[in-house]
């Protein structure tokens, strides 16, 4: 594994932001809209709730962490799509670049944009609504690690799907975080879901994160933080390994059938 080649993949994406500041505006605009919209909705809902429960705390915290996950997943996917849209794929894969270096480069890019987005959301939530995402302490960091690993796994899955079916399959990648949020218990406890859907929640690593952090926020959930962390972490790593193997299988298939050499934005 060459750090220089990983850096090349990473810096290629950073150059895109540097060369076109409109891309940065797009990143921060959605952050602004999310925080302001959900902040005011939570504030309004708080007027109906019990004095002991803060909707702002429950919803804004969830929005910030869920956006972090979505940003990482879509960051991996869009960085990959950039290479397809600019027809750079063939140039990259005729160079000494290895597929694993390419994937690490994409993940590094999405981590950078995901962290910038997370910090921007945290600052904005603090300034606009007095919400401090770090008030629950450093315990948030290991749970963010689970979200990061799971998001990377989903990003790699989408990369594999696009590599298999062509860029027209990208539409599948955009609603994944929204669809997943239904079962991950982002905005409500898993117990709210019907029994059958709760089973689905059990295999989504993010559900362990939100159940745990919601508990720390002061609801009535019984917590076993350590168990939740380990189950969520092991599931996330499991998905990461499976999705990476899936990507490598698709890559090798494309090497054999010629799809890699013919891959283009029109595929």
């Amino acid at each position, binding site marked *: 594994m*060459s750090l*220089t*080649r990983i*850096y*090349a993949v990473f*810096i*290629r994406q950073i*150059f*895109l932001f540097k*060369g*076109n500041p409109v891309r940065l505006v797009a990143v921060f605009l959605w952050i602004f809209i999310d925080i302001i919209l959900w902040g005011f909705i939570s504030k309004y809902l708080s007027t109906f709730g019990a004095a002991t429960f803060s909707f702002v705390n429950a919803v804004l915290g969830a929005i910030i962490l869920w956006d972090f996950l979505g940003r990482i997943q879509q960051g991996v996917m869009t960085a990959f799509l*950039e*290479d397809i849209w*600019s*027809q*750079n794929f*063939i*140039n*990259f*894969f*005729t*160079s*000494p*670049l*290895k597929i694993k270096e390419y994937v690490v480069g994409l993940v590094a890019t999405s981590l950078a944009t995901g962290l910038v987005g997370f910090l921007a959301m945290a600052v904005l939530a603090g300034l606009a609504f007095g919400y401090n995402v770090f008030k629950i302490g450093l315990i948030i960091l290991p749970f963010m690690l689970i979200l990061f690993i799971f998001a990377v796994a989903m990003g790699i899955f989408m990369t594999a799907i696009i590599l298999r079916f062509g860029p027209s399959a990208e539409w599948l990648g955009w609603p994944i975080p929204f669809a997943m949020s239904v079962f991950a218990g982002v905005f409500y406890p898993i117990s709210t879901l019907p029994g059958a859907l709760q089973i689905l929640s059990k295999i989504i690593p993010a559900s362990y994160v939100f159940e745990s952090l919601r508990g720390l926020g002061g609801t009535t959930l019984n917590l076993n933080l350590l168990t939740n962390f380990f189950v969520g972490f092991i599931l996330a790593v499991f998905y990461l390994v499976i999705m990476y193997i899936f990507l490598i299988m698709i890559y*090798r298939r494309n*090497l*054999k*059938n*010629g799809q*890699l*050499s013919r891959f283009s934005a029109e595929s």
Partner: protein
Amino acid sequence: MSEKIVLKVSNLAKQYQELRAVDNISFSIKAGEIVGLLGPNGAGKTTTINMILGILEPSAGLIEISGKDLKNNRCQVSRQINFSAVYAQLPGNLTVRQNLYIFGLLYGVRNLKARIDFLLKDFALEKFSKTRTGLLSSGEASRLNLAKAVINKPYLLLLDEPTASLDPSIAQIIRQKIKTYVNQTGSAVLWTSHNMAEITDVCDRVIFMSHGRILLSGDPKTLPAEHDKKDLEELFIAVAREPLSFDK
């Protein structure tokens, strides 16, 4: 021209279900040699180049570059080769310098800044250094593609129609650049083109392909006469229309 073999292709084949795109071909290229790979559309030229580039897995056969098997040494071998093709433009949303920087990193070029400065000057791209690649004219983009193709001083340069769609003046400049590069470095070049005058001018040897097979090979200046044809273009047309008459 050295006797050292840079590229050796042995019994190479590519099968797509019913279609035999490349059918058991063998050839080699020596250091300092420019070889033209010719043939009608669908003859198997680009398939052959893609296999040598490592982005298409052969169904059978062996590709060796500087004595190393490509299949088992792809990363190491890829450092010694590079390519330019009309269908593989560099990202248009990056500047000329940024593109060279990224590919310099990928190919592990030492003293990268100095190498980029040299290439910008050598390919008359200095004033476009901060220009987005997508804004370049065809000629400027071709010069940039070629600059990228030699950034790692490759032993083997694969050029798939490098002068297609260029005006005669720019095409001549590109040809001259490649010839100069080969003379200075002793690299080997595999060149595909449909411009027979260009091939006659540049190549030391040509290989004619049709239906995935090698039908003829030889000196582009003497080969047409050996087959009672006026020039390389007439020979090309004959190979394209009557491949069976050349089949060994």
